[in-house]
């Protein structure tokens, strides 16, 4: 029996815990006034503090703490009134102080949970803790033949590390959890959540155990998972690798493994024995962080609407289905897009249908990712299109044609309708003339219809619509045909 089939038959249970690193979108770094923005020239965003010149000291960015409090509130974490900063010591050229300021024994919050849907099933993952820390810089090894280069723009940018309990059971679940996490941080306005720019990163602890066992198996920590697809693929690979080892009677080695997306494999990076001894100890340059109730309440009162609440509101206020609300609120950008369209034309159900079927189809890329700001038209244009249907200017069928043109050109639907001559014909005389012509030209079919072949009515409708190039008002066509054939 292959490892995979044994696994699929339920021999093993996969146990996954994720550590998500999320860059906070503050204007400045965590412990100095340098810009925390992405994309500047190397080492432009540096100062004596983040360069770790001798004698410099960190000063906490209170805004980063507010962002962190938002994350704690949105995930139901318990916020610790007092938490401590710690130093994590290791040598690397992109770590200027040779230690990272982080939180270790006393994080600022603990014991939260994140709920998400996957294929119609609700999942809940518990959070062990969230803590704040500063990012390291970036080493560039392939830009120069004999030198490595160091860019310290990122050094000191604030991060949240969100640590989950080992509650995740599959790669797709892990990816769904990550998507929910990204949706949350974007809703909260605390991070752009871009995995490709590294503002959201993830390490996965993966282990297998016999189904029914309560003890955790030996885990491997997977690093370099820089897309949702990588998360899924790396975990799938790792499950297969560990299952094969276990089925052969072997034991999994506790180690850190690097995901190689090009080759689709994980490779051993360092074993437990080679693991760093980070020599954590309390950071003496910073006072303990005190987050009192007044601060928490102020942040809570300023908290934006979160995805689950928005989903409920879409159902109650717009009469949408649970499914459509879920799809529309999964991303803040999409939900905003929808509400902007509704604000321009009050037909939420029709707009929701257009968005979930037609707009999403063109918005999503191969990875299933969407950037709504890059659509060829905005929500007002979609609203204008639905308004043209609702006021009878075009038929629903013509609207599909107009939509295609909007995707191609980005033009306003009214302009397209005008240019392409797609306005619906509602002139009763004109339609009656076509009806007469069609009935006259198909005397035999008209006779059959009259003798009881009701199905032929559709044939006549089709012919009239064809003759009118799809522009005849369908209701009028129906009525006039009925009058002419039944009369």
């Amino acid at each position, binding site marked *: 029996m292959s490892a995979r089939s044994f696994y699929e038959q339920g021999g093993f249970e996969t146990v996954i815990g994720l550590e998500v690193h999320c860059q906070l979108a503050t204007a400045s770094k965590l412990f100095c006034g340098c810009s925390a923005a992405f994309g500047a020239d190397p080492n432009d965003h540096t100062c*004596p503090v983040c360069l*770790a*010149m001798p*004698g410099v000291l960190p*000063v906490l960015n209170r805004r980063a703490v507010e962002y962190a409090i938002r994350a704690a509130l949105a995930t139901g974490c318990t916020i610790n009134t007092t938490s401590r900063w710690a130093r994590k*010591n290791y*040598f690397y050229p992109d770590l*200027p102080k040779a230690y990272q300021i982080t939180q270790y024994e006393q994080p600022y919050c603990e014991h939260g949970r994140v709920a998400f849907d996957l294929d119609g099933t609700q999942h809940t993952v518990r959070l062990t803790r969230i803590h704040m820390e500063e990012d390291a810089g970036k080493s560039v090894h392939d830009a120069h033949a004999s030198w490595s280069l160091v860019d310290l723009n990122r050094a000191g940018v604030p991060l949240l590390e969100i640590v989950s309990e080992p509650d995740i059971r599959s790669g797709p679940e892990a990816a769904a959890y990550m998507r929910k996490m990204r949706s949350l941080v974007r809703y909260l306005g605390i991070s752009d959540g871009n995995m490709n720019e590294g503002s959201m990163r993830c390490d996965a602890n993966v282990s297998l155990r016999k189904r029914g066992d309560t003890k955790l198996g030996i885990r491997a920590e997977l690093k370099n998972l820089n897309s949702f697809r990588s998360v899924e693929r790396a975990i799938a690979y790792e499950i297969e690798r560990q299952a094969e080892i276990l089925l052969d009677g072997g034991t999994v080695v506790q180690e850190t493994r690097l995901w190689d997306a090009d080759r689709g494999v994980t490779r051993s990076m360092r074993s437990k024995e080679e693991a760093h001894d980070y*020599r954590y100890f309390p950071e003496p340059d910073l*006072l303990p962080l005190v987050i009192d109730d007044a601060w928490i309440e102020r942040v809570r009162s300023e908290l934006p609407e979160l995805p689950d609440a928005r989903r409920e509101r879409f159902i109650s206020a717009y009469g949408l289905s649970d499914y459509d609300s879920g799809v529309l609120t999964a991303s803040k950008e999409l939900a905003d897009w929808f509400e902007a369209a509704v604000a321009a034309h009050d037909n939420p159900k029709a707009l929701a249908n257009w968005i979930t079927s037609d707009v999403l189809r063109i918005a999503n890329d191969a990875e299933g990712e969407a950037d709504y700001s890059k659509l060829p038209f905005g929500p007002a244009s979609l609203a204008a299109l639905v308004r043209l249907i609702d006021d009878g200017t075009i038929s629903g069928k013509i609207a599909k044609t107009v939509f295609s043109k909007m995707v191609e050109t980005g033009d306003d639907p009214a302009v397209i309708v005008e240019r392409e001559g797609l306005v619906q014909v509602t002139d009763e005389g004109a339609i009656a003339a076509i009806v007469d012509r069609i009935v006259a030209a198909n005397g035999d079919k008209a006779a059959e219809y009259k003798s009881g072949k009701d199905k032929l009515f559709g044939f006549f409708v089709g012919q009239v619509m064809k003759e009118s190039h799809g522009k005849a008002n369908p209701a009028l066509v129906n009525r006039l045909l009925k009058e002419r054939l039944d009369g």
Partner: protein
Amino acid sequence: MSSIDQLSQLSIEEASRRLAAREVSSRELTQACLARIAATDSQVGSFLELTPELALQQADDADRRRAKTNAGASDATALTGVPIALKDIFLTKGVRTTCASKILENFTPTFDATVVARLRQAGAVLLGKVNMDEFAMGSSCENSSMKLTRNPWKLDRVPGGSSGGSATCIAARQALGSFGTDTGGSIRLPASFCGVTGLKPTYGRVSRYGVIAFASSLDQVGPMATTTRGAALLLQTVAGKDPLDSTSIDAPVPDYASIIGGHPDVRGLRIGIPREYFVEGLDADVEVAVRGAIRKYEELGATVVDVTLPHTEYAVATYYIVATAEASSNLGRYDGVRYGRRRGEEQGLREMYGETRDQGFGAEVKRRIMLGTYVLSAGYYDAYYSKAMRVRTLIRRDFDAAFAQCDVIVTPTAPATAFGIGSRTDDPLKMYLSDILTISVNLAGLPGMSIPCGLDRDGMPIGLQLIGKPLDEPTLLRTAAAYEDACQWQRKRAELRP
């Protein structure tokens, strides 16, 4: 003695008075100090970097500022025009700052430490940078990688450390005042050995921003001068909250000089004498001098109370765990990547780290980095660092209990006077014990002072240590000044002949 020599012997308060009265110019004072340095520094070796042109420029600026003040238009401070020296641990913009280490031998800072910025703003004249033990690790100044500094009272004795140059430049009357740092006694011990006044303020009273870190939870900046009133004026200028140092205390800075006043009074003051500080191994002459000082306080109307600090015996061990742990982390940044000395780069990253740090750090610095790395290691943290932090709390509580019974604690600063150069360099443990009477003060974060209180049989100065409650520098200064006024030991000078 020439008159120019006499100018460099002025106390800060006297120089400040004469500057304000326009009886002397800052240029004259500065020239007097530069002349004295030229005449004596080949013997003493205080200065690592002398900046005479800059100093004279600052002196002229100060004189102009004083002139405007006389015209009723400006803002001169007590320190405007007063020439002082800085331990080479303070970052000085554009002036090489080495921390007496080869690893920073070519390091020129791009900004000033907060202390330096405040001194410049006040109009003090900065003569240059003075010697120290490398990264402030040492008790004799012999761990400098730059040069040997000698005790002006006897040139074959050490000046004490780590702020050795800060003490010798005062004792040799090369500067009117100086700043040092004190992590375990690094201001008070050299002050004691060199017969000058040294003050370690409450932890957090003075900003550490731009002060090269040794042990962050213990390091504190403080002044040295010939007199208590001089030290008070120096402290006044630099003390107070600094937004760049989160551990600096946000409490108002009292007017120290006016609190001391013309006739400081100690009547009714309760002076605590901890029995643990008068133990076996205390030099007989030191004990006699300190007991004499205590009697003098009684004569002046103070009450003497016996107090106990029972955890004193654990202080040295606790200190060498906490201080080395923090140091091992603080010194990680000297990796040759961004500034300072770099070696072995052609051989790869590990080799670059290894060569840079092996050649850049001296033996004592390496010893402490290794010790600190060890006590923080997985499996040892609880036994060492964590336990040391708990003992630290006990030591602090000892002082809290003692201060329930007294206002100020008086002890010897050191068990003995300055020892011979080279006499303890082979025995680190013996060297560490020089700080046995000063270390607890740092662990508890309290203010402490050393003032001269006599000479031993060889004519070497003896220091009296005063310890105060948190932020109670006023009582400390008042108590010190009362003794000084009564006994005048500060007038005794090293017989240093050019």
